């Protein structure tokens, strides 16, 4: 019997410990934990201006943060509704998730741009901090920058009216958000 023969066993023991630890950190539990917490800070270029921005740039609020990508067909479905929301004065920030910036810019110029600004998240790191499953997803950002709600999948009028509208209809909020726009 030689010590060398125990190396595979020792390696497996380490792996088993890791997996045991892994069981208690459910990766899908993160989004729920994010609710009620501030939007994770980041430092990424804006899609069009390429200027580096952080979470503080997401002004005015309340607002929507929409996770999208050109490879995502469902994003095309919700795009017209996002344009409609933007014209209603709802501030929408985009998180361009794991995408090619050139394609993304082309998409916006072809289909219209509902976003006040877009966080370029090429590697998906902001998405990971946020707990994004995939695109499209939409988050509601409260006036204080806290994440109030998360919607997975296509955002349409029915969903907005049912789950999201009330975040924006605190008296004067929506109007206030729109007026702030000039000042930003």
């Amino acid at each position, binding site marked *: 019997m030689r010590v060398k023969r125990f190396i595979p*066993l020792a390696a497996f023991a380490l792996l088993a410990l890791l997996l045991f630890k892994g069981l208690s950190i459910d990766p899908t539990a993160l989004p729920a934990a994010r609710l009620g917490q501030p939007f994770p800070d980041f430092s990424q270029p804006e899609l069009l201006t390429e200027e580096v921005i952080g979470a503080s740039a997401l002004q005015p609020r309340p607002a929507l943060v929409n996770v999208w990508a050109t490879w995502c067909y469902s994003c095309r479905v919700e795009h017209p509704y996002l344009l409609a929301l933007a014209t209603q004065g709802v501030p929408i920030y985009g998180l361009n998730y794991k995408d090619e910036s050139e394609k993304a810019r082309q998409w916006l110029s072809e289909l219209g741009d509902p976003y006040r600004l877009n966080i370029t998240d090429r590697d998906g790191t902001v998405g990971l901090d946020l707990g994004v499953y995939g695109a499209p997803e939409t988050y509601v950002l409260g006036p204080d920058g806290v994440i109030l709600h998360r919607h997975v999948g296509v955002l349409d009028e029915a969903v907005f009216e049912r789950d999201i509208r009330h975040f924006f209809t605190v008296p004067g909020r929506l109007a206030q958000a729109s007026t702030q726009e000039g000042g930003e």
Partner: protein
Amino acid sequence: MIPEIGHLALIIAFVFAMGLAVIPMWGAVRGNSAALNLAPTLAMGLLVFVAIAFAMLAVSFLKDDFSVAVVAANSNSLLPAIFKFSALWGNHEGSLLLWVLILSGWMAAVSWFSHGLPSVMVARVLSVMGMIAVGFLAFSLLTSNPFERLLPNIPLDGNDLNPLLQDPGLIIHPPLLYMGYVGLSVPFAFAIAALLGGRLDASWARWSRPWTNVAWGFLSLGIMLGSWWAYYELGWGGWWFWDPVENASFMPWLMGTALVHSLAVTEKRGVFRAWTVLLAIFAFSLSLLGTFLVRSGVLTSVHAFASDPERGLFILIFLALVIGGSLLLYAVRAPTVASRINYTAVSRESLLMVNNLVFTVSTIIVLLGTLFPLVMDAFSLGKYSVGPPYFNAVFVPLMALVMPFMAIGPLSRWREDSAARWLHELLVPGAVVVVFALAVPLLFGGRFNVWIALAVLLSGWVAIGVLKDLWRRLGVGSGYGLRWQTLTPSFLGMATAHLGFAAVVMGAVVVTQLNEERDLLMEVGDVEFLGGYRFELTALSRQAGPNYMADQAVFEITQGDKPIATLIPEKRRYFASGQMMTEAAIDGSVWRDLYIALGEPVEEGAWAVRLQFKPMVRWLWLGGALIGFGALLTVADRRYRRQSTVKSAAIAEATGLAG
């Protein structure tokens, strides 16, 4: 009643598995031949009762018994019958039952085809597999009972099967994949039985080899089908995503590739014995690890089953017992005496060692990439995702590294060879391949592409090695006529699989380099050119399917004046779930695929459309199929059927390795 019969059958199967795990093993320790000889009977009983349970679940699905929770969650009365059947394994509980059914099928096969083996060996092998069955049946019964009822509130209709899974490919992909996954339990059980018996000799390797080849062949076919399914069903034309669940099936395959080759050395030359045992343990352990990763929810993936930490803990404990136990056994019992068989650095042994090193390192690379996010998360170092760039950056060079040796391997001699002889054999063919590598890339689009040149060089080199071997075996030009009898199934299988590997590499590189795609907004009458083809959208219509409504677009494709194809991609909306599905339309041929996927209606009469031109993409699956069928072909070899115990004992004695 039917689900209860199924549940009861599953419990009886569990009792059989317990008996199988204990009685023959006890018999082997005590030398009690009555207990030993019970093993095949118990294995058969296990198979019968698991099959009954499986049949009862299948009947529940086919009869739309929505009082059964699994049926209600995964089927629907409008679903076509064939999908009602395949819905059985489109979920955690049912697929686990399929796992156990296939495991007991393998056990029955071992007991049928092992007449030439010593009964104590058969008893140990079946008993080890029985222990695995105990674990999985307990898992099924305790945490994932497929026969659980929804009483008293029986739903009127089911939730429907995920539309992604309503596809012919998904009827056979999971069973094939499981045949491979679970089949690796056979070489594992042989390895454990050999360690227990303290007889790790050439005959052990010869017994394991056909089983390993078959399991690995099925695994290859399963992975190939999964990739093919992702290509045409997910609707974006990708064929490999390095997704954790894909990695879960790919790691056992990589390890199995090493094992298949290492077993060859152990059988023929009696070297690498401890290493081969370790590989057999690793290959099956990675299958189990894959099961854990897919079902515990530790990693996120598009494929993952609904996760549950309780289930995760159960599998983890089981994993610790099986893998930890076998590695401990290995540590204590593996042969420690240095082999007395010699080989030189220039020999077939060394070449196969290169194969083993490369494939083991590849497995570790994939394992690290898969677990890295978990490690970082566990130490609270942040959330990471490891994407294709990492895997491609390390995996591609490794495969490129192994290929130069692949051509020499089959031509090389055991024990001692010479580089001069290799040069003599391969100089002319090698020169031909270099010329091809310089010329062929020019055929694709006129611009010289270095990557394609490299792919032609390496794949051509592998292919030429195979052809040269064929040439030499047949004795072409020797003046004595062709020696057809030298083309044994094991040679033909190896040659087929190696050619398949070369084809996969060609396909992967060419489609990655020369793929063209375009996202467009198209109306009826719009025309687009791609890859030298003219795509015209000629009509839009709406059609009803059995359980969905489909928007269809009709594309006429022409090349010059020649009509090529009419493609009709669909966008389906499934009634039960309201889910939207993209059905891509593909015009496939050996040299290129034209791939059209419908996006969304953007405005009145206009659709978002993705057109793709994918050269040689089919070589991937063609090559994968060749690898799989090649592996399956090897078991037709006559030498695996001449398994007289007298002879194997003689071999063991002759090579001085017994004990």
